[in-house]
């Protein structure tokens, strides 16, 4: 790549008359510019800290309302079997999860009150026989096998221990969905830093580490992969 002719000769004398002085002459730095550099650095520093903690969570999650503003409290009063009246186990031990219309239809064939939400429910879903597209705050991704029976029956845990006191809620809460992953915000937990504990009655975060923590406490080990993955 280099030949004898055509060489660029660089000698100290030729190019750098002030070679023992590192400061160059075209932009003499001053103390004030050093402070300005620091100022800009701090602006960026503080700005990004603020946006990272406040703006970022706002941008990351989209907000959706449930199709119907469901009142758990009212229902819990009238059903006989607590949560399991609607969120029941099937005979094969699997958990039915969100009830489908056939569970609702016994009472809601026609609207029983003049509650606009109930009327909406009957008109938009029951009558045309369309399942309600409930948004599941606790929905785990496809790779997870969560056994409700192991926890509720096997370990005798209450629904509240993970889901909080949703059973006594009178309104649905806003469903926040991670725009990137599609996860419900409940999985990560509402604290963006995942520091601190949820208040009593709030649903628990449901990342794998949260599962592992409880498993470690209750069973002595975090469990093998296939205990919870499929």
């Amino acid at each position, binding site marked *: 790549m280099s030949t004898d002719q055509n060489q660029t000769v660089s000698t100290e004398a030729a190019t750098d008359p002030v070679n023992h002085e590192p400061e160059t002459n075209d932009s003499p730095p001053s103390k004030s510019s050093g402070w300005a550099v620091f100022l800009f650095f701090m602006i960026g520093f503080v700005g990004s800290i603020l946006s990272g903690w406040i703006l970022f969570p706002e941008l990351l999650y989209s907000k959706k309302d449930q199709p119907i503003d469901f009142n758990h409290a009212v229902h819990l009063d009238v059903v006989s079997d607590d949560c399991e009246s609607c969120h029941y186990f099937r005979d094969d031990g699997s958990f039915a999860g969100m009830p489908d219309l056939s569970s609702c239809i016994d009472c809601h064939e026609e609207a029983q009150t003049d509650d606009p939400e109930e009327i909406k429910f009957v008109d938009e879903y029951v009558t045309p026989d369309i399942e309600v597209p409930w948004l599941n705050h606790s929905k785990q991704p496809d790779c997870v096998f969560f056994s409700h*029976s192991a926890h509720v029956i096997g370990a005798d845990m209450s629904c509240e221990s993970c889901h909080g006191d949703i059973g006594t809620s009178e309104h649905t809460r806003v469903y926040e969905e991670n725009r990137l992953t599609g996860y419900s915000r409940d999985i990560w937990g509402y604290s963006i830093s995942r520091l601190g504990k949820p208040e009593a009655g709030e649903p628990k975060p449901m990342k794998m580490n949260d599962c592992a923590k409880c498993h470690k406490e209750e069973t002595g080990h975090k469990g093998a992969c296939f205990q919870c993955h499929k």
Partner: protein
Amino acid sequence: MKDKNAKRYGMVIDLDKCTGCGSCMVGCYSENNVPFKADETNKLDSINWIRVYKITNNKTYPNTEVCYLPMPCMQCDGAHEGHSPCVSVCPAVATDYDYDTGIVSQIYTRCFGCRYCMAACPYHARKFNWWDPVWPADMEKYLSPNVSPRMRGVVEKCSFCFHRYQLARDKAYLEKREELEENEYQTACAEACPTGAITFGDLNNKHHAVYKLKNSPRAFRLLERLNTNPKVYYLTSKSWVRKAGDNYLAHEEPTKIKNNIKEHH
């Protein structure tokens, strides 16, 4: 981690009964959402959790004999339980050994596709998703929710249909039972085998069929000399088949080779 109720699920495949029909493979595909491509003739990029090999005694016509050899994941125990060839090499713990069942897991969402486990497995039981899976025309409708479809770039393998164990456990919880019946947890291949060549159960449980079968004089395991300590046993009455199942020096006889590692309970 291991408790005294721990199971060691294993399989016994009677090669004398296997006709090579491929039902186990198809049963497995449809149970485990195994994808398929237009061209599956390159068996080195074709995802099979159980593959039926056709081996011959290398004799000329008419003394030729053929034996079919179905190979799922051997769920190796290794020299000491949990030391499967693939488990210790995975850099991200995407595969582990479940001491409660003896089953080697593979977690597709954890795997980042380094393929070290594939290099480690002498049985070629591990398959890589070179492509994104595609189910053409409405075929996504037949996918089972019990096994998570894999994405491109991860390794997958036979899980002994672990999801069936999970589901059976669910039922047991509901019925407040600790133990599963032998027939409650069976793999899809064992279920699909139309000649009943595949038997599945707890190798530690005297009441399970596999317990007796594995002690048959016809029983052997593949590549036992590597000390992989597989939990899949084979039965054959043919000495050449037994010999093909491992490597032997010219003067060695399969039945006379003692393993350094004995199967443990």
